[in-house]
């Protein structure tokens, strides 16, 4: 369960202000955030992942209040409980597909890399059709393959929540639906929450809830 209560966030030296009086998202709910650029979708993802902290109000994810956590605990929370997917894939150029997928285990000692994880990595790559490309580097992959690698990286540590920021923004229609299918498949099977920020209305079928930030602005008082 995700709960936001009377949240106010503003970036330093900026006039932007995000205000949310109340928002609740169920643990296994699949939600799409849609709306114009600059309406605060990505900012909300950053707040939900603990990258940014609101100046006012509380944010609780899976029963844990992010505001009251230390920086270190928030990082640990992020890497153990949340899987992040980025619009530009954000793969590490000097790591091959396997090592990119295993990256969460290399950058935070809370996650232990063992044989089971490696096997899960192979399974995920098989699932997304990259089993024969595990030794390739990002520049040797197509954009669709890069985003599927990024999906595997977000799923490898079996997070309870996936936050995806424009995951199909740079993909052709075929790859777009492939990526969304994988995300749905991976959330359905293990009762995992999914929040996707998107501008693309063609991928909205299948979400449990669509939060349009234009309407949301009125109903939940998200203000700019």
């Amino acid at each position: 369960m995700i709960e936001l209560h009377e949240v106010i966030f503003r970036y330093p030296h900026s006039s932007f202000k995000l205000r949310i009086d109340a928002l609740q998202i169920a643990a296994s709910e699949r939600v799409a955030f849609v709306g114009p650029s600059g309406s605060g979708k990505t900012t909300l993802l950053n707040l939900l992942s603990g990258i940014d902290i609101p100046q006012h109000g509380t944010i609780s994810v899976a029963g844990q209040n992010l505001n009251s956590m230390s920086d270190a605990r928030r990082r640990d929370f992020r890497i153990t409980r949340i899987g992040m997917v980025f619009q530009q894939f954000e793969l590490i150029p000097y790591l091959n597909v396997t090592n990119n997928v295993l990256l969460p285990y290399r950058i935070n000692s809370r996650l232990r890399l063992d044989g089971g994880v490696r096997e899960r990595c192979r399974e995920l790559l098989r699932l997304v059709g990259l089993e024969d490309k595990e030794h390739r580097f990002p520049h040797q992959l197509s954009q669709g393959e890069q985003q599927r690698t990024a999906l595997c990286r977000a799923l490898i540590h079996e997070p309870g929540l996936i936050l995806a920021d424009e995951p199909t923004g740079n993909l052709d229609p075929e790859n777009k639906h492939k990526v969304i299918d994988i995300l749905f498949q991976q959330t359905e099977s293990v009762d995992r929450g999914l929040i996707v920020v998107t501008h693309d209305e063609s991928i909205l079928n299948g979400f449990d809830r669509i939060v349009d930030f234009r309407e949301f602005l009125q109903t939940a008082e998200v203000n700019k």
Partner: protein
Amino acid sequence: MMQRLLLAWQYISYYRWRSLILIGCITLTAFLPALLSILLTEFNERMLTRAQRTPLVLGAQGSGVDLTLHALYFSKAPKNELTYGEITKIRESGLGEAFPIYGRFTARDFPVVGTNLDYLEFRNAYLETGRTFAMLGECILGSDVAKQLSLGAGDKLLTDRENLVDIAGLYPLRLNIVGVMKPTGTADDRAVFVDIKTAWVIAGLGHGHEDLTQVHDDGKIASRDEQHIEARASVLPFIEINESNSGLVHFHGHPDEFPITAAIIRCPDSKSETLLLGRFESSTSGPQMLIPSQIIGDLLGLVFQVSQIFNASMALIGLSTLLLLGLVISLSLRLARREMNTMFRMGSSRGTIFQLQLFELAIVCAISAVLLVALIALTYTYAGTVLEQLVLKRN
């Protein structure tokens, strides 16, 4: 920590050319001053040791440095020569022993040193195989010569012609190798030793040819009377001296008039040394007598001054390399900013990211250090040989 190390290694191996350039820069910047220091120390030690083991050097007027280097290292012979008679005079004066050196010739680019057996004893040079030279035309090889030319007792070695285009020049002599010296770690290892008389044969002052009293071919004999036989150029000197023709080798002139390029003098006491030095010091046209340790000391002083200039310039180069390294590292960090941001957003601490950067630098520095140690070890192993071959070779 291992995971971070692995990540750092993957970064370095992916950007291998950039990393190699960085490693090369660090290694060379550290190695060049170390190389100079090792070479200078080794150079000083070797030069001074041999100079200190050589009490006095006698030679014709000219460059004292050239004469000393020739007497000690058989470098190119000085232009002016002195006569063997000078040695005879010193011996007869009872003020010291004299070991002649006639080092004007080479055999396959190694110096051929005409001397006597006392010289080898003076240098504590002993035979490893074979025997010492006993008759004209025989030689013994320094250990490096034998090794590099793959020659040993029983083999032959032809001396080099002084000038390939001078058809009236000296004929080469085929030397019979009768022994090989034990390694000494000195210039003696890279020389071919012959008796002083053999050296004079190479110089054309002595020669052997068929017995002209038994020759009646007008193509070879120009004129003949009861006292003299005048031979034509078609009578060729022996190219090799052996037991069957050694009796026919003869010298035209008295040995005291024959040339030597230098002599090493050993006095029994400091009084005799002072007397000898005084005798030659007052001479302005005759031979000069030098104390090698003084000459080499002056030379090393000059080398030290040059090295100080080199060290100063190396410090500047080192500083500029460090600044460049700083620039390269800051550019690398800037390029990696997006990757670092991704890691941070995924849940990595800034400390971990800093650790990652530190490991990358540490790996580069560690590889450079290993290379540096290997290069220094190689330098220590070969410094002496390289120095003598580069600095003191015959040129």
